[in-house]
């Protein structure tokens, strides 16, 4: 098993004829991902590495039975591309671009919640189920198949942990780039139940950051629903605070929601294990495996 994607996933690449789409499309194919179609408006009828290109997502989906799409389109076209994929009822929509306007994502978020699609990203490296399939641009050589499920708001912290785990011979079930933006399509709470019910996943790693309340909401869920061990890193304790001139921010988050302290406090109450560094996460996972054996 694994979650979200595996060897049977049929993937569309929106923006396949663009520089990034072509470059990473080739790498996804080389990894073994079943890329079944590309979409670029106006380029339908052609092909890239033998993969047929369509003008619209709906045509691509009708012709190939695709059940996932990854968007290698520029930030300003990301919302339009996501809407098209949602409208074509693609179950999994992964958006990669950084600098997508937050108002665009707010629209995508609310439309997606009323649809059958799960949107991931933007500002995400994508999703990988090691040894099976990858949809995104992550450096796949550092990943190995195994029992640790990872979801992360930060790409770099995530790579670091995966690299250290793989070096210790500890593999991963599925690794998800949630993306670091203000409004991600999906977040920890969406993936926790999937990891909990996935037989391959034995340990769940959650890499959060300061800001927002997704970690606090995840903590509540973990407390009452998750039996598997959850290891958490919250980055940014000593990051500079944004200079806010207005009062609205202070009024909204008067209870401290968003700070690393508040997040860790909530997570501790949920029995999640808090790590201080990427290296400590790996040590905790080694200990967990040792205890189990």
């Amino acid at each position, binding site marked *: 098993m694994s979650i979200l994607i595996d060897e049977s996933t049929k993937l569309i690449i929106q923006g396949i004829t663009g520089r990034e789409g072509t470059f990473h499309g080739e790498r996804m194919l080389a990894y073994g991902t079943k890329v079944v179609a590309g979409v670029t408006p106006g380029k339908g009828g052609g092909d890239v590495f033998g993969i047929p290109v369509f003008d619209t997502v709906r045509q691509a989906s009708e012709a190939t039975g695709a059940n996932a799409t990854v968007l290698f389109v520029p*930030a*300003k076209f990301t919302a339009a591309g996501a809407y098209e994929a949602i409208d074509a009822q693609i179950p999994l929509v992964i958006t990669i671009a*950084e*600098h*997508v*306007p*937050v*108002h665009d994502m*707010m*629209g995508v978020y*609310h*439309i997606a919640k009323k649809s059958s699609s799960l949107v991931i990203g933007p*500002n995400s490296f994508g999703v990988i189920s090691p040894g099976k399939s990858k949809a995104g641009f992550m*450096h796949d050589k*550092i990943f190995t198949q195994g029992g640790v499920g990872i979801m*992360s*708001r*930060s*790409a*770099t*912290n*995530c*790579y*670091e942990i995966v*690299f250290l785990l793989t070096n210790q011979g500890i593999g991963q079930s599925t690794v998800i780039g949630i993306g*670091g*933006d*203000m*409004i991600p399509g999906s977040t920890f709470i969406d993936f926790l139940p999937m990891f909990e019910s996935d037989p391959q996943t034995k340990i769940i790693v959650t*890499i959060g*950051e*300061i*800001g*927002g*309340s997704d970690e606090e909401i995840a903590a509540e869920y973990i407390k009452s629903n998750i039996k598997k061990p959850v290891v958490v890193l919250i*980055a*940014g*304790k*000593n*990051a*500079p*605070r*944004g*200079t*806010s*001139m*207005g*009062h*609205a*921010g*202070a*009024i*909204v988050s*008067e209870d401290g*929601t*968003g700070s690393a302290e508040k997040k860790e406090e909530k997570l501790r109450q949920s029995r999640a294990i808090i790590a*201080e*560094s*990427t*290296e400590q996460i790996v040590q905790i996972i080694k200990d967990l495996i040792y205890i189990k054996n």
Partner: protein
Amino acid sequence: MMSFGVMTDVKLLEYKGKELLEGYGIPVQKGVVVGSAQDVPGAIKDLKAPYVLKVQIMAGGRGKAGGIKFADNGEDAQKICSKMLGMVIKNIVVKKVLIAQKVDVLDEWYLSVILDRQNKCPMVIFSPLGGVDIEETAKTCPDKIIKTSINPLLGIKDYTARYIFKKYNLDNAYFEQFLAIFKNLYRLFSDYDATLLEINPLAITDGSRLLAIDCKADIDDSSLFRHADILEFRNSLDENELVVSARKFNFLYIPIDAGGDIAVASNGSGILMSCIDLITKTGAKVGAALDLGGGATSERIAEAVKIIFRNQKTKYLFISIFGGITRCDEVAAGVKLAFQSGLSDKTIVIRLEGTNKAAALEILASIGGRVITAESISDGVKKLKTRRND
């Protein structure tokens, strides 16, 4: 966009925010902005005395810091203005002053629209007790502040305004004016990709008019491709020179602790935050961070190192690069290039992992003792601490 868990929004100065409000039909206190005291007489010729002068700086609480003064006539206004320009308030040099027509205020309300991350919706905040103590009001009389999530697919409807008026027993004579301001503010919020629009106070003046006396506006910096006027405003700002230099190379330079002698550079904000957390734990202070982004060539790395050390206070640079697509030997060659241009009193602790690591280590070894290589982030943090204590 987000970086370091905070928005890197463009924050508009009061005068610029008011320009936007006016453009959306929201009545604002009449005023002009000046950058030189000589311009005052000409600038205020259409304004009626008495005047209020307000420094235009990127900081809250300017009134309590002496940044707001009153003048009875044009002569006084000019005198006060010339004193204000060049003043240092909250470590910021005053470059612009807004001179406005003083109004008699009968009552002060508070109205804002903020992008609420928690609910992924716009949120409207209103209080009948507006003014400088609004945050205090939020703590002491929370029932005097209403927070309402707006469904972005629905937008603002009349009933929300009606609810606010009923809840606080507000005079219905102001309802139509308020409704128009409310709807226009939301329209501006959506059209301009704002993450915050705040009118405080929204004053009731003696002419029974609602008037925006002060405003704050934050615009999402990822949306500037569709807001040429805001981009132009940001480019006109007098920002940290290193931030501006870094932006030219698509680096993000983030000043952190002015007393810090260490800078951190990496290819992503998550790992930067982790490095800062670990270094801070050893008791050291990080002065700045630089996000290199992806695809670093040796020339770009050399530029990044030079920009970082242009801050004289920065003595140490901690670099952590996880190769991925970035080639380690390119990074190492960049560091060498930077050292060839000087930097005799600077030290770099560097941790590289990824493609062509062996070649990278050879290049770094050829630079000599000012470059210390580390096997991991924690190893690097340890070595940095040891070197600083030498």
